[in-house]
C-alpha cells in the first residue's frame, strides 16, 4: 500500500566502514533512547574508562549509558543535543583509550552462546543496547514478550529505505556473520525458531552475501524486497514479509512479530558475545558535495563536526545538515551536537538542495492519499489539524501517522502537509492523555 520513490543517492555504499579515533571531548546525553532518561552514577571529576557504566536506566523503559572513551568527567550538565533541545549530558575529556576489563575487543567470531533467554535479555540491558534504526527503543524490553502474547517470527530490518544512508548496508557486508550470530541469540531470547531478514533489491551485494551466510544458520531466511519508501517502517516490513497487518495503535507482537534492525543484531552480538557495551556505532556521512562520502565507526558523543571534517570538511555550498535520512531526519543548526545511539547518518545538502517548494493551493490531485503507507488522507488531516478540529483528526486516524514524510515529498502544490499533521498529532495526543486522566 502506498509508498514513494525518492532518488536513492547512496553515494557511500562502496565505502568500507572506517574507524574514527576518539575526539578530544565527548558529550554523552543521558537520554539517547525512547523512554525515561538514565540516571548518572558518576560525578564531576571522576576518572572513567571506556565501557564503564556512567548512567543507569532505572525505569522499565530506559537504557544504561556507558562511557565511550576513557578520561575525566568534566561536566554533568544540560547540553544541546541533536534534537535541538538541551538535555542532561555527561561531558568527558578524553585521556588515552583505556577500556574496562572483560570487554573482548578481538575481532574473532564467537558463535556459541551458552546463556539462557533471561540471561541474554539481562545482558542486552546491561550493555545499554537500543534500537539502532533510529527509534532507539530499549532492546531488552522488546525481548520480553508480554503475557498472553506469543512471538512466532523475529523480523530483521536490513531495508535501509532512507535515501543516502548506507550504514546498515556496509554493516551487512562487513559484519554479516556477526549479525547472523546476533540474530540467533535474539531468536533464543524470544523463543522463536524463525527469523526473516528483509533487504531491499537496491543492495544486491548485501542480499547475496546474507543469503549465502543464512544457509549455515537454521531458521534464518533472507527476503528481497521491492525498493519503496518507507519499506523499512516496522508495520510495512511485517506486511511485506508476512502479509500481516499490525492493528492500528498496536505493537508488532500483536501479530506475533518482533522487529529489530541489523545494526541492533550486531550490537546484540557484541553485547552478548564480546561483553561490549554500546559505545560506538556506524554513521554514514554523505551528500552530493561532500568530499569523501564515508561510513564511520564512531564513539557515541563525538561531535557531528568531527565526522564532517573526517569526510572532507563542510563544503562551501552547504545549506543544510541533517541528522538521519533525508525523509525523516532532523535538520541541525549546531554542528557541535554529539552523535548518539540513534544517529544513522549525517547528511550535508547543498544550498540548492535545501529548499521547500513554493506553497500553492491544493489541487486535490489525491497523490498524498494514494501514497500514504498508512492509508490516511493527509490533505484532510492537514486541514483538520490546521483548524484544530481535533476529534475529527482522531477519527481520521491522525495518530496512525508515523511521519514518514511521503505526503510532503509527493505534494505538487508544495503544501507543508506533514508540518500541519505533526502539530495536530501533538494536540490530539494531549487531548487523549487528558481524556484518560
Amino acid at each position, binding site marked *: *500500500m502506498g509508498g514513494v520513490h*525518492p*532518488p536513492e543517492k547512496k553515494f557511500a555504499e562502496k565505502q568500507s566502514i572506517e574507524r574514527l579515533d576518539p575526539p578530544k571531548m565527548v558529550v554523552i546525553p543521558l537520554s539517547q533512547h525512547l523512554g525515561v532518561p538514565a540516571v548518572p552514577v558518576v560525578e564531576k571529576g571522576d576518572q572513567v574508562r571506556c565501557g564503564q557504566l556512567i548512567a543507569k536506566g532505572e525505569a522499565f523503559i530506559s537504557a544504561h549509558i556507558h562511557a565511550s572513551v576513557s578520561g575525566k568527567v568534566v561536566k554533568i550538565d544540560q547540553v544541546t543535543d541533536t534534537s*535541538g533541545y538541551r538535555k542532561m549530558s555527561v561531558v568527558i575529556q578524553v585521556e588515552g583509550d583505556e577500556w574496562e576489563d572483560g570487554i573482548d575487543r578481538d575481532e574473532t567470531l564467537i558463535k556459541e552462546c551458552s546463556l539462557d533467554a533471561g540471561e541474554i535479555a539481562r545482558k542486552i540491558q546491561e550493555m545499554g543496547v537500543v534500537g539502532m534504526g533510529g527509534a532507539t527503543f530499549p532492546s531488552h524490553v522488546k525481548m520480553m514478550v508480554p503475557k498472553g502474547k506469543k512471538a512466532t517470527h523475529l523480523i530483521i530490518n536490513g531495508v535501509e529505505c532512507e*535515501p543516502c544512508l548506507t550504514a546498515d548496508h556496509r554493516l551487512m557486508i562487513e559484519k554479516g556473520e556477526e549479525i547472523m550470530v546476533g540474530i540467533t541469540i535474539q531468536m533464543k531470547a524470544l523463543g522463536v525458531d524463525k527469523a526473516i531478514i528483509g533487504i531491499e533489491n537496491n543492495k544486491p551485494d548485501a542480499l547475496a552475501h546474507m543469503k549465502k551466510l543464512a544457509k549455515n544458520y537454521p531458521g534464518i531466511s533472507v527476503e528481497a524486497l521491492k525498493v519503496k519508501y518507507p519499506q523499512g517502517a516496522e*508495520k510495512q516490513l511485517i*506486511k511485506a514479509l508476512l502479509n500481516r*497487518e499490525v*492493528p*492500528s*495503535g498496536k505493537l508488532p507482537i500483536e501479530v506475533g512479530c518482533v522487529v529489530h534492525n541489523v545494526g541492533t543484531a550486531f550490537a546484540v552480538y557484541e553485547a552478548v558475545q564480546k561483553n561490549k557495551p554500546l559505545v560506538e556505532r556506524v554513521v554514514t556521512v554523505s551528500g552530493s558535495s561532500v568530499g569523501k562520502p564515508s561510513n564511520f565507526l564512531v564513539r557515541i558523543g563525538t561531535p557531528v563536526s568531527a565526522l564532517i571534517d573526517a569526510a572532507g570538511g563542510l563544503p562551501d555550498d552547504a*545549506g*543544510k545538515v*541533517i541528522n*538521519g535520512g*533525508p*525523509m*525523516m*531526519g*532532523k*535538520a*541541525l*543548526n549546531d*554542528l557541535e551536537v554529539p552523535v548518539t545511539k540513534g544517529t544513522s547518518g549525517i547528511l550535508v*545538502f547543498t544550498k540548492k*538542495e*535545501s*529548499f*521547500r*517548494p513554493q506553497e*500553492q*493551493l*491544493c*489541487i*486535490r*490531485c*489525491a*497523490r498524498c*492519499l*494514494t501514497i*500514504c503507507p*498508512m*492509508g*490516511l*488522507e493527509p*490533505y484532510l488531516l492537514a486541514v483538520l489539524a490546521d483548524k484544530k478540529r481535533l476529534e475529527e483528526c482522531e477519527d481520521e*486516524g491522525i495518530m*496512525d501517522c508515523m511521519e514518514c*514524510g511521503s505526503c*510532503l*515529498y*509527493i*505534494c*505538487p*502544490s*508544495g503544501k*507543508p502537509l*506533514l*508540518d500541519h499533521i*505533526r502539530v495536530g498529532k501533538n494536540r490530539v495526543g494531549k487531548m487523549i492523555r487528558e481524556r484518560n486522566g
Partner: protein
Amino acid sequence: MLTVSGSPHFHSTQSVSKIMYGVVFSLLPAMVVSFIFFGLAAVLLTLTAVASCMAFEFLIQKYLIRGPMTIFDGSAIITGILLAFNVPSNLPLGLMVIGAAVAIGMGKMTFGGLGKNPFNPALVGRVFLMISFPVQMTTYPEPSVLSTQLTDVVTGPTPLTLLKGGIARGQEISEVMSQMPGYTDLMFGNMGGSMGEVSAIFLLLGGIYMLVRKIITWHIPLAYLGSSALFSAVFWLISPDVYPDPVFHLLTGGLMLGALYMATDYATSPMAPKGMIVFGVGCGLLTIIIRLFGAYPEGVAFSILIMNAFVPLINRGLKPKRFGEEQKNG
C-alpha cells in the same frame, strides 16, 4: 548559515504547472485533428477560448480576489481548451467569450480558484451556453478537411442527434445507422459534433499519455467508459432493433472527452480509488439514461455535473482502506 526545516528534506519534482501543462500536451493530438476537420474556425475559437479564460482569471485575481497571479499555472489554459472542445466550431466568438466568463468566473473563481471549485468549470460554461443559446450551440458544422471558411459552413446533425430523432420517430436502429458515418470515421472524428469531442482515438491517445505520466489514474475513465458500455449493452441486448450497440456510444458525442478529461478533473472528482469508481459508474449510468431517454441527445456534460455534486458525499463515505483497520483473522 544552515537551513533548518522539518522533514522530509527531499521533494519530488512534480509541480502544479508541470501537471497542468502535461494535460495541455496530451490534448494536442485531438486538437490538431479537430483543426484539420473543422479548419480555421476551430483554430480561432480555441484561441479565443484560451485567451478569454486567462484574461478573466487575470482580471478576477487582480481586481476581485487580489490573490497571487495564477494564470500561468496552466489550469486556465486547460479550461479554455476544454470549453472550445465542448462547443460547435462555428460558435460566434462573442458567445465563446461569454462562455469563458461563466466558466472561469462562476465555475472556478467564485469558489476561490484552482482546486476549490465543486463543478467542472468548462462544463459549467458549456451548459450555460447550451441553455442560453440553444440554437448556436446545436448547429454543428459538417467536418470539411482544412477548411478556411468561417461563415456559411455546411451544417448537419451529429450522430447522437440522429439517434435521438430516430428513437423519437420510432425508427428502426438499422435505418438510423444507415444515415451515419461508419465506425472508422467515428473513431477518427470524421463526423459532426463539438470540435473536440469528435476524435475518440486521438483523445484516447492523450488519455494513455496522462496515464503513463501518472497525471490521472485508470479508475474514473475505466469506470465511466466501462459502465457506459455495460449499461448500453443491456439495452442493446434487450432490444437491438431500437437501441444502438455499445461501440456506437463509446465513439460518439463527448463520452471519450468526458471520461478522460472532464470527469478526471482533480478538484471535482473523488479522492479515493473506491470513490472514483463509484463516481465513474454514476457518470456512465446517467449518460446512457440521458442519451436514450432524456430530452437532450447528449448526456455527458449533465452526468458529470450531477456527479460532481455528489463528490463531497462520496469523499465522506468512501475512504481509503486504512492500514491495520478491521483486522481480518483467517
